[in-house]
């Protein structure tokens, strides 16, 4: 069962991007709306100007065809009705006199204007603007016109009240605002849907990741059908899981082995002591039990010591003090030490060594001894163990080779693992606790070197150690 996905506080990526999307669209659409509003207003204004100009020119022509002003004064209604709109203004007057025709339903006050002289055509530039009390724009023009041939001049003051335009603009503005709002909502909604769909793989990924628990470490994220960016994430995540799974398996194996190695002697100690205490026994029997207990305790103590050493080495808490040691001399000492037990198995050493090695003496001896002990223990009886050592500018190399049964590559890969034993039945062998090669690896790591095992020829096995030179050792 997978644990529920934990509730995530804060904004989700989807809402965040949707909000940004909405903000961006509203900015763009508002800008566009303002532009449209302005240009429509300008177009309407131009049209209104044209209408006003057309009418005033029309008046001028009409008056030119009349005989005198009196004819106009007699028929004011005719002139009053000659503008298109009831709100529009028409004022005819002789210059400096009261108007003889006046149509000004809203009683608008004309702005100060110099009348255009006779003969000069009316243009947009000669128009003036004022505002009605309700904010509607009013365009004004004042022009002089000849009446008939008598030389009479009349001033025409006309105004165009942009009532219709204002109304049009008002409804147009509402439509723009509505369209803009709709566009914002629509883009936000579409953005949200698209994002949710686009981020579906991420959601799937998170659900999948939620299923990964210590008991279920083998689950992996799907890489198929993922967008490239997410595939990279999935790839690295899966690689991390691989490493974790391997580490976890390693740890589980280690703790299992550790439990076995430690519980067995404790069990023996407890059991045989309790049996011994069960009834009175002879001093010899007690001695035997105590002796066996000491043996078990020694075994336990060795395991604990080795594990502590490995734990310390893992944390690199050990300061390694290095000295130059003579390879031939030191190898001689070690083969000397093991000569007796090698001889018991009819084995002999063949040492070829030269040069020096930069290492901690005690640790070096421990490492090499572990390899030599292994060779003596597991090598074929009546054979020769070859030990080669050489050094060059990069460091030194020590190889221990012996004849052995064929070892599988899989077994070789695991040899340096803690508690690994090639043959499980060897757990009865109290001399070995399966930590020897793990310690070899740890000591080599402390020295910045490496340990390796290989099969140089059928029936041979070779362990090699590589120590870096003094120059390569970080201080």
């Amino acid at each position: 069962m997978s644990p529920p996905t934990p509730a995530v506080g804060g904004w989700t990526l989807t809402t965040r991007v949707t909000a940004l999307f909405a903000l961006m669209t509203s900015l763009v659409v508002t800008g566009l709306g303002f532009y449209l509003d302005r240009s429509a207003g300008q177009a309407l204004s131009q049209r209104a100007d044209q209408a006003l100009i057309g009418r005033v020119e029309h008046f001028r022509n009409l008056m030119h065809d009349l005989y005198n002003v009196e004819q106009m004064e007699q028929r004011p209604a005719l002139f009053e009705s000659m503008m298109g709109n009831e709100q529009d203004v028409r004022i005819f007057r002789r210059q400096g006199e009261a108007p003889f025709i006046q149509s000004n339903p809203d009683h608008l006050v004309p702005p100060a204007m110099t009348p255009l002289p006779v003969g000069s055509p009316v243009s947009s530039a000669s128009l003036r603007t004022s505002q009605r009390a309700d904010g509607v724009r009013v365009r004004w023009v004042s022009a002089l016109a000849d009446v008939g041939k008598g030389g009479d001049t009349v001033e025409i003051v006309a105004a165009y009240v942009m009532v219709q335009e204002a109304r049009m603009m008002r409804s147009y503005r509402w439509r723009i605002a509505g369209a803009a709002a709709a566009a914002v909502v629509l883009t936000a909604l579409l953005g949200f849907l698209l994002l949710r769909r686009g981020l579906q793989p991420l959601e799937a990924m998170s659900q999948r990741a939620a299923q990964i628990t210590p008991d279920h470490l083998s689950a992996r994220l799907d890489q198929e059908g993922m967008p490239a960016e997410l595939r990279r994430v999935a790839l690295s995540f899966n690689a991390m899981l691989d490493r974790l799974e391997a580490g976890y398996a390693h740890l589980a194996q280690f703790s299992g082995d550790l439990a076995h190695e430690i519980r067995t002697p404790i069990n023996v100690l407890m059991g045989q002591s309790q049996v011994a205490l069960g009834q009175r026994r002879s001093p010899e029997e007690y001695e035997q039990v105590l002796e066996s207990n000491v043996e078990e305790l020694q075994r336990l103590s060795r395991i604990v010591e080795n594990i502590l050493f490995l734990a310390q080495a893992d944390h690199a808490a050990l300061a390694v003090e290095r000295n130059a040691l003579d390879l031939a001399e030191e190898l001689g000492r070690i083969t000397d030490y093991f000569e007796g037990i090698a001889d018991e198995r009819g084995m002999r050493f063949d040492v070829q060594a030269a040069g020096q090695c930069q290492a901690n003496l005690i640790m070096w001896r421990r490492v090499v001894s572990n390899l030599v002990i292994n060779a003596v223990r597991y090598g074929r009886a009546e054979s020769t163990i070859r030990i080669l050592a050489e050094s060059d500018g990069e460091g030194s190399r020590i190889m221990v080779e012996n004849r052995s049964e064929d070892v599988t590559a899989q077994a070789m890969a695991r040899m340096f693992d803690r508690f690994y034993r090639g043959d499980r039945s060897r757990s009865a062998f109290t001399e070995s606790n399966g930590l020897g090669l793990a310690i070899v690896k740890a000591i080599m790591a402390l020295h910045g070197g490496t340990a390796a095992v290989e099969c140089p020829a059928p029936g041979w096995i070779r362990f090699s150690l590589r120590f870096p030179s003094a120059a390569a050792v970080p201080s």
Partner: protein
Amino acid sequence: MAILVIEDDPKTGDYLRKGLRESGYAVDLARNGADGLHMALEQDYDLVVLDVMLPGLDGWQVALAAQCAHDLPVLFLTARDHVDDRIRGLQLGADDYLVKPFSFTELVLRIRTLLRRGVTREAEVYEIADLQLDHVRHKVTRQGVNIALTNKEFMLLHLLIKRQGEALSRSVIASQIWDMNFDSDTNVVDVAIKRLRAKIDAPFDKKLIHTVRSVGYMFSEEP
């Protein structure tokens, strides 16, 4: 020879006192640092066995205070085996250092060495029962018969004889003869002793090299 043991763990303290008394020493036991320091200053001891991790006044402080007053050999016992601790102990004038868990036999051997320091002089010729070892001429005879030994065998026999009557642990032997100062989990010493016995003891009725169970080996006239 009087030894002061300062150890807070009750069981460890009790068995150390018992074991050391049985090994022939007069032993006083202090169960904390303050008592221990008081006793070390008041009475005349030949050696102090001191636990480092004591409640209150710790081992380092006790050692420092005690050594200011007397020139007293100190053997530290500790569960900590960091290099720094070791250096600190030795700087403070610890004469020796044992990491827990230690073997009791090892402890007795170390104590004996510390107490004997500077006293013994190397003999040139040893004679034990019918065996004669000439250190200078590198020669061993038994009942007048010359016994040919390898170099290591001679060193091993020499060590056993030099410290006859003492049970020597395998790690002490490995360290003295082969300079191997770590526990190598092998029966190297047993094999070497077996070979030595084959030459020294096997042809003769009286056995001189004895196995001390769960400890090691001892050279002695008495069986």
